[in-house]
């Protein structure tokens, strides 16, 4: 009987950990997507039902959750481009580590653009 699933630790370092993070963020985004389609479907029930559901997305706690979700999406998107370059660009595998730091840099820049605006919308007395 197998005691542990195969491949719990590959080689460590940038290559493996970016792969782990890509999987974790991917699963996270997928489950949010399922919920998000269901809550949007409430527009077919009534305006009141939809507004009540979307109202829960506008609370401070959910606002932080949205920040986390956007962070997951931004990482997954940029690291996805890195995977593409590793697969299709001849020098991709050689620069895969460097490209992870480029991903990290682009992530920081994108989140720096998004977070202040979003947090102001969430906490800055909207409604």
């Amino acid at each position, binding site marked *: 009987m*197998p005691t542990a*699933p*195969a*491949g719990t630790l590959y080689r460590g370092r940038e290559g493996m950990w970016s792969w782990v993070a890509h*999987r974790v963020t*991917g*699963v996270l*985004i*997928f489950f949010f*997507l*399922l919920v998000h*389609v*269901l809550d*949007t*479907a409430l*527009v*077919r029930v*009534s*305006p*009141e039902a*939809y*507004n009540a559901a*979307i109202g829960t*997305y*506008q609370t401070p706690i959910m*606002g932080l959750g*949205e920040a986390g979700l*956007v962070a997951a*999406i931004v990482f997954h*998107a940029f690291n*996805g*481009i890195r*995977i*593409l370059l590793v*697969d*299709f660009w001849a020098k991709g595998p050689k620069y895969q580590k460097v490209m992870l730091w480029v991903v990290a840099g682009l992530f920081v820049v994108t989140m720096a653009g*998004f977070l202040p*605006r*979003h947090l102001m*919308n*969430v906490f800055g007395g*909207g*409604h």
Partner: protein
Amino acid sequence: MAHGTAAVAKVDSPRSPYVRRKTTRGNYELYSWIFMRASGVVLLVLIFGHLFVNLMVGEGVHAIDFAFVGGKWSNPMWQVWDLLMLWLAMIHGTNGVRTIINDYATRDMTRLVLKGLLYLAFTVVVVLGTLVIFTFDACPPDAPAELLASFCTA
């Protein structure tokens, strides 16, 4: 090439390309691998656009309500945008989770059950989402006017 031997090996189709392994399973995994990369690039554009318009413009998440959705989906461009996003994201995500199930669920029965649930969720969400986009009424007749987009009363 072995020179000098008189024996000539008989080859069935001498000009057919080298095949490493014959399989009856087709190229499904290859196409899935390509799809993940192609859809990923399109999704990056679609989702970044979606997040920018819904969370960054104006009051961000606070501006989203029924009237906001009504305004967006009265424009065919956003209908196509959201439909494409729904289908690509669901196929991309389902295929990703399928890969993860195949990697970690070692028992045949566990894999079967998990993938069954996954494909069920895929079907329900894609069918529901598609119906919602195409049957949406921005101005339902029995709803209070203040909850609707301004063009409903104009």
